[in-house]
């Protein structure tokens, strides 16, 4: 019986990933007994460059870790904060879990949509913001909470949305 594997098509990793990215991923591998364990770290590292991960990068990571490309794709699509399509310069994650729901999520969410003129899952035409919902930010004593890039804010009132956005040009 011929076993068909979906091993990544061999690519020249060095042309897709930067030297620093390759170095960084190799550094992550050192933390684990098997290279595969660095897959999520690698995706997060590569995502820092453009804000999202494209097919070539997924392929390159699969090559570097010697893991089937579908497995890397499986990890990339499983996690909420790995993006497989382009996002804006800043990603706004509005917590919609119960603690924030109880403290005013709906009004805050409506204000973000109105202010940005977009719905969840969309990016502003100028490429500045992408708006997404996120499950519990673990900031429940300060709901409603928002995560912009790597900064957590809370409580945020609808009146403060315009001011908050100004910090992210």
């Amino acid at each position, binding site marked *: 019986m011929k076993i068909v594997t979906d091993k990544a098509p061999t690519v020249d990793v060095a042309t897709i990933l930067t030297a620093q990215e390759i170095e960084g991923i190799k550094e992550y591998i050192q933390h684990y007994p098997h290279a595969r364990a660095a897959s999520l770290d690698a995706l997060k590292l590569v995502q820092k460059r453009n804000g999202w991960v494209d097919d070539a990068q997924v392929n390159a990571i699969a090559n570097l870790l010697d893991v089937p490309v579908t497995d890397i794709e499986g990890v990339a699509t499983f996690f909420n904060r790995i993006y497989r399509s382009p996002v804006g310069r800043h990603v706004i994650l509005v917590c*919609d879990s119960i603690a924030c729901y*109880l*403290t005013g999520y709906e009004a805050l969410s409506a204000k973000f949509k109105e202010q940005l003129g977009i719905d969840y899952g969309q990016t502003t035409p100028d490429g500045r913001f992408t708006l997404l919902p996120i499950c519990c930010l673990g900031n429940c004593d300060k709901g409603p909470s928002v995560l912009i890039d790597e900064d957590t804010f809370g409580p945020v009132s609808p009146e403060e949305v315009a001011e908050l956005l100004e910090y992210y040009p």
Partner: protein
Amino acid sequence: MTSEAQPKRLSIAEQFARRKQGKAPSQLNEQRVPIYGDKETATIETRPLTWRLAHHDAILDLATYQSLRGFEGLKNALDKAPKEVGDMIKAANVRGRGGAGFNAGLKWSFMTPPDGGPRYLICNADEMEPGTFKDRLLMERLPFQLIEGMLITAHAIGATDGYIFIRGEYIIAAERLMAAIDECIANNLMGDNILGSDFSFHLHVHTGAGRYICGEETALINCLEGRRANPRTKPPFPQISGAWGRPTVVNNVETLSNMPAILVNGVDWYQNLPNEKGNSTTPGTKIFGCSGLVNDPGLWELPFGYSAREIIEEFAGGMQQGKTLKAWLPGGASTDFLTTEHLDTIMDFDSIQKAGSRMGTGLIMVVDESQDMVPLLKNLEIFFQRESCGWCTPCRDGLPWGVKLLTAIDDGEGQVGDIEKLEGLTRDLWIGKTFCAHAPGAMEPLMSAIKYFRHEFESKIVVEPAPEVDEQTSQWAESEIQKVMSTMSKGKPATSSKASTETNNHSDAKAGSEGESNDSASKPSDVK
């Protein structure tokens, strides 16, 4: 307590400035110390988890932590044999703080005997249960305490390597833990031959990227190995075959943070901690908290024995003006709702279970009277639906169905029988019918909401009035039915037909019951 502890609401400008200064969200209200009582007398004996915060706003460097009895517990542990430490923790009955409440020492004792190969200790820091936020504080402000707890645990279970599996959104916590580990390495508190002993341990920080299921211990192990975070079949339990097929223990942040003080003060001290209130048999202290529309949401380290009412009214400052308590979740979105009648329940594992819920993480979330339970449940179930890993069919298909039914009811398009369908789901997605506890966890708030607030679900289901019937037609139909009935009874005498037997039985039963009622009705006249 209430007026003093009122948090200052920080403006967006202040929040942004603090973030840029590297101050974490849980430090925003720095004037609030998560300790109840006299700050000055808070010690390692009275508030073992948070006492250092009463004296210092943040424990960032190793020297400060060491000056406050840091690593004393580790030194004591290293003087003992691993089994001795394990037996101590088992005897102390430290119940897991991740939600399940299982004896941590007992969990450790299931580890297979050392065979010379690697063994792992994993700290579950993937706190994503809506309504809980205690581990964030312990990691952001007391990273060395967690690391010391992990070192003690690793020594007890013979772990060679450890991972702190931290959710991707806790960015500052991850940064601080990494920095703290580096400081420990530089000071022979981590790595090979720790403090000159023959104990070696290597600790790494592994960050997630936002999936609730990673909090499930076997899903967490899969994610750590670089796979999709689907749960694994149990058995084998991780203690037999965990990370990379090797013996592994997974403990929560708060559980591990408890270890240093126990090694400093001993088992008897831990066992006697509940005596402060004298009404709970659960030993130790716990970080309790409260969120929702209360005056002072936050966290407090308390011994077991305080009631939910005391936590909400005394520590959280009571409900906000104009708000009345309607229901509460004892410890996260996957616990059953309790109501005002349960407010005097003691917040410990056994008492909350007796009241019909689970203590979970012990962080109360209050629901006020203005909340309609149907959209509220819809919000909860959308969370669980979205976070289902999709590994098993009941969860993958059942949770969206629940959301669909709740959405229909909320939109006024619910059908008679929808509530019963939801109740059916709570049975079909219950423990043992799904791969892990995700779907059963989703069913707990749903089941209890229907139990206590069924009328709210019912009031949203519009029962369509029966269509108007034309009187003439109805009279005609009735006479036609009678004609048919009479021909049936005349023409075909019931011989052996099952239907007729049933009819006879039915009429007999009816006659019997009528007879009985006649009897009972006649009794008073007999007496007369």
